[in-house]
């Protein structure tokens, strides 16, 4: 018998040197070993029992967690607005359907779960569904159908859906489920179509926009080159549309724009009409229409727009100018054709608006000249090509009371450029702000040097009111030159007040607070709204030269001058008449109690040297001062 190692050890430990076994000690050791074994067994039992309990709890917790996760996922699937279903891969029997799915199929899930497509759908649909299912199961590749019409269900036949089917395999790789998703994309597709429409159409008029026009023109050019046909491009611009916007406001302007667009599109039926920005339109005419027909249409367009458009009880009056360029005569590429149609349009506008012009090669030259002039204008200031002329202003009895400062451009090669040619250009590119300041400074410096405290009147451009700090620069100039503010008079046209009326009014009030006098220029032309006179206490009204020169010729002019004078007098505003050239005109004005006059009768615009005696400088003093 082999003895247990522990017992052998215990016996050895209980045996003394003589070989005698101490039974009591052995008993104690054996007993203690039993105790240890019992203790270890108890501890092991307890540990195993506790471990089982703990593992059971862990398992239960895990099951609960799993249940909760499942519920969570179920509630997501149940509530997403996309139809979701699952089927048995073997026989296409439905095993899951969410709420959106019920809506999609138009039946409660109880009627579908556990059933095959044949048991649910009409034969024709069941066949399609089964075919799709088999294809996905056999190939293992997902099916994805995009934007197709709803073939089944009650949501309406016009709905568009994306549908996909996906195979799920079991752990062994065998087909187990088919999961399907059906998403209603009707709104999305409609939106996409709308966005695409917006990208190519002008939002206000719904006409094709510039990019659509460019694309159409490019296409037309290709076709025309291949087929050797010809066609016309029309560039159109509404005349005075900006004024309508300014005077009647944008809502009226918008309505007018829509009405004008409708008329153009209706009249140019069959042509490609596009709004390419602001008040500009382009028309691409059909192929092989002869020049006369194109011109005929253009004339009709001018006529139809020229007919007053009644918009929201207003009758704003706009006109249309048209420029025409022909392919291939006036250009064989888009850039040239468009530029030449624009040149013709520019000419039409310059010649008095409401006209149709066909491109001629010298127009090209004209446009180039205009650009050259603009270029020269930039250098004029730094090269001291500008001059200030002074024209005397007098009481009707002849006593000179001041001068109007007038800008002149003495070009080194062109000579004197007419102000009506270069001032609009300077206003276009903003140079007028700098030039205007220069004129103000020169005029003030000059006036400050006069022994007699005469008035000096300076014209301000609307652009100066919009850009820069006009108040500060006038203040600065007055300080610099030492001119008494009350001697400075600024002349503004109503163009200053059209647009940002409140801003302009504020600026005028602040200028007036400096002591500067404010005169309303060109009164009687334009809208001459009486509300301007009411809204600001002008120091002077200047009657436009047109009325004075026609005094003898047309009785209406005399009546208008009388009316303006009586209105001004009623408002206690003195009036100055411009363009007085004859004694008869002066006599008329004197009779009608017009306070002041300006014109060749008093003196032409000239360098101040010519008027030194009027400003109180003796020639000698001037020469040797």
């Amino acid at each position, binding site marked *: 018998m082999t003895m247990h190692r522990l017992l052998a*050890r215990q016996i050895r430990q209980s045996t003394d040197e003589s070989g005698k076994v101490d039974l009591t000690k052995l008993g104690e*050791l054996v007993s203690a*070993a039993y105790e*240890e074994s019992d203790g270890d067994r108890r*501890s092991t039992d307890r*540990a195993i029992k506790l471990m089982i309990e703990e*593992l059971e709890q862990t398992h239960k917790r895990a099951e609960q967690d799993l249940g909760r996760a499942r519920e969570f996922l179920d509630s997501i699937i149940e509530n997403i607005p996309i139809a979701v279903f699952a089927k048995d891969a073997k026989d296409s029997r439905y095993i899951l359907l969410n709420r959106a799915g019920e809506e999609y199929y138009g039946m409660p899930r109880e009627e579908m779960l556990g059933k095959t497509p044949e048991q649910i759908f009409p034969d024709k649909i069941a066949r399609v569904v089964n075919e799709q299912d088999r294809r996905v199961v056999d190939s293992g590749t997902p099916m994805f159908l995009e934007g197709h019409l709803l073939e089944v269900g009650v949501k309406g036949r016009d709905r568009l859906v994306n549908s996909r089917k996906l195979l799920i395999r079991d752990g062994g790789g065998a087909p187990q489920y088919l999961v399907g998703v059906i998403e209603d994309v009707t709104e999305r597709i409609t939106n996409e179509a709308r966005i695409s429409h917006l990208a190519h159409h002008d939002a206000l008029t719904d006409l094709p926009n510039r990019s659509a026009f460019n694309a159409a023109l490019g296409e037309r050019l290709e076709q025309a080159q291949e087929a050797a046909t010809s066609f016309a491009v029309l560039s159109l611009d509404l005349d005075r549309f900006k004024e309508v916007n300014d005077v009647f406001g944008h809502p009226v302007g918008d309505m007018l724009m829509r009405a004008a667009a409708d008329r153009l599109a209706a009249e140019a039926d069959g042509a490609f009409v596009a709004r390419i920005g602001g008040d500009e339109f382009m028309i691409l005419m059909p192929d092989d229409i002869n020049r006369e027909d194109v011109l005929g249409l253009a004339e009709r367009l001018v006529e139809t727009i020229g007919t007053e458009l009644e918009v929201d009880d207003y009758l704003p009056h706009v006109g249309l100018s048209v420029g025409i360029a022909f392919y291939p005569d006036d250009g064989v590429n888009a850039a040239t054709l468009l530029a030449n149609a624009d040149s013709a349009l520019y000419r039409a506008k310059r010649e008095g608006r409401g006209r149709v012009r066909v491109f001629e090669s010298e127009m090209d030259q004209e446009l180039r000249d205009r650009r050259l002039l603009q270029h020269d204008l930039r250098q004029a200031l730094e090269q001291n090509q500008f001059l200030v002329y002074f024209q005397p202003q007098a009481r009707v009895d002849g006593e000179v009371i001041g001068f109007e400062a007038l800008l002149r451009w003495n070009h080194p090669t062109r000579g004197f450029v007419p102000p009506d040619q270069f001032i609009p250009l300077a206003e276009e590119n903003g140079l007028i702000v700098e030039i205007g300041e220069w004129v103000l400074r020169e005029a003030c410096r000059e006036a400050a040097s006069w022994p007699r405290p005469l008035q000096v009147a300076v014209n301000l451009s609307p652009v100066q009111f919009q850009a820069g700090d006009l108040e500060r620069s006038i203040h600065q100039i007055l300080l610099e030159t030492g001119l008494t503010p009350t001697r400075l008079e600024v002349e503004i046209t109503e163009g200053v007040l059209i647009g940002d009326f409140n801003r302009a009014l504020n600026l005028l009030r602040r200028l007036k607070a400096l002591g500067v006098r404010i005169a309303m220029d060109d009164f009687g032309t334009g809208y001459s709204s009486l509300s301007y006179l009411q809204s600001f206490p002008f120091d002077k009204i200047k009657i436009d030269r047109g009325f004075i020169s026609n005094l003898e010729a047309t009785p209406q002019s005399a009546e208008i001058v009388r009316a303006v004078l009586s209105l001004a007098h009623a408002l206690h505003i003195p009036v100055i008449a411009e363009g007085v050239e004859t004694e008869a005109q002066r006599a008329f004005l004197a009779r009608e109690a017009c306070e002041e006059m300006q014109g060749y009768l008093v003196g032409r615009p000239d360098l101040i040297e010519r008027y030194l005696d009027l400003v109180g400088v003796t020639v000698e003093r001037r020469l040797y001062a």
Partner: protein
Amino acid sequence: MHIQYLHWNAAHGWRGANALREPAQLVLYFGSREGLESGERYRELRGLYPDGHIVGCSAGGQIHGDDISDDEVVAVALRFERTQVRLASEIVASRDDSRACGERIARQLAAPDLAGLFVLSDGLVANGNELVAGINGIVGPDLPVTGGLAADATKFEHTLVGVDGEPVPNRIAAIGFYGASFRFAHGCAGGWDVFGPSRKVTRSEGSVVMQLDGEPPLDLYTRYLGEEEAAAMPGSGLAFPMRIHDEAEPDRQIVRSVFAVDRNARSLTFAADIPEGCTAQLMRANFDSLAAGAGEAGRQARSALADEIAGDKLAILVSCTGRRRVMGQRTQDELDAVAAELGDDVVRIGFYSYGEIAPPAASGRCELHNQTMTVTVIAEAAA
């Protein structure tokens, strides 16, 4: 190398055999805390070996040869042929001081021909993990460092370490062995298995665990030990160490034993830091698996001793008090298992500790272990 083995008991005082022909360079001794704290044993050894370094610590049972005893003091006196021995010693005032102590000790002993370090440390105040990290940081990962934390049976009151003086608490000793002939082989293994569910360390601070899966850890131990055994915590808690899995160091096997109990907070203090967010799993063992683990440690140490050896070979066994508590009278089995692997020609001495220091089998860098048997074999190569 020559070894003189000797032991002390109350009946006969010191007894020894094979007196050394030349003065001893180093004397190692282990005894119970009660047996050492008077300083008497040290003074007697000093009388016997006036010129040698004398280093020892309190234990949870002393190992000599095949036997374990609680009331005897065991010692070996060593004389090397070609090896020099130097000592370093530090006072560890608080747990936070442990890494710095380790660094200071290592700096004192570091030298190009340093061939091995054996460390004995206070087992309750010092943070063994930090101490070892401090030493590693100075001497590098390639130098073998072994040793153990002094013990106080399963009482956890205080532990003693003596370095050329009477053994006292808060002391750390390190013995440096120098020279090309010195051989230092080691093995370390446990034999424990994880059981039950994994638990999350939901709240901890340093080595104090406040919550496991949101529950006070004392409650868990009380359930597993039973009320009666739980009253004997922390000693009884040694039966269930914990394996810690730290995501930051997924390959590291960390086993930690309970060191202290706060019955009010129901928290437990472990032998080293347990970071919050780790996974913890209880471990247990049976007599056979622990013995087999010890045998594995012996096998590792013996197989690492490849050279031809001149003279005697000494094996220092440092095993965990937790193992002894689980094995009871079967503790002998683990000593037998080590002996069978080491062979008859190796002298064995050692002690039951509060923590073992040795590189784990997988990596070279030494670490603090709990619940293992570590075997350090020292010898000198043949010339």
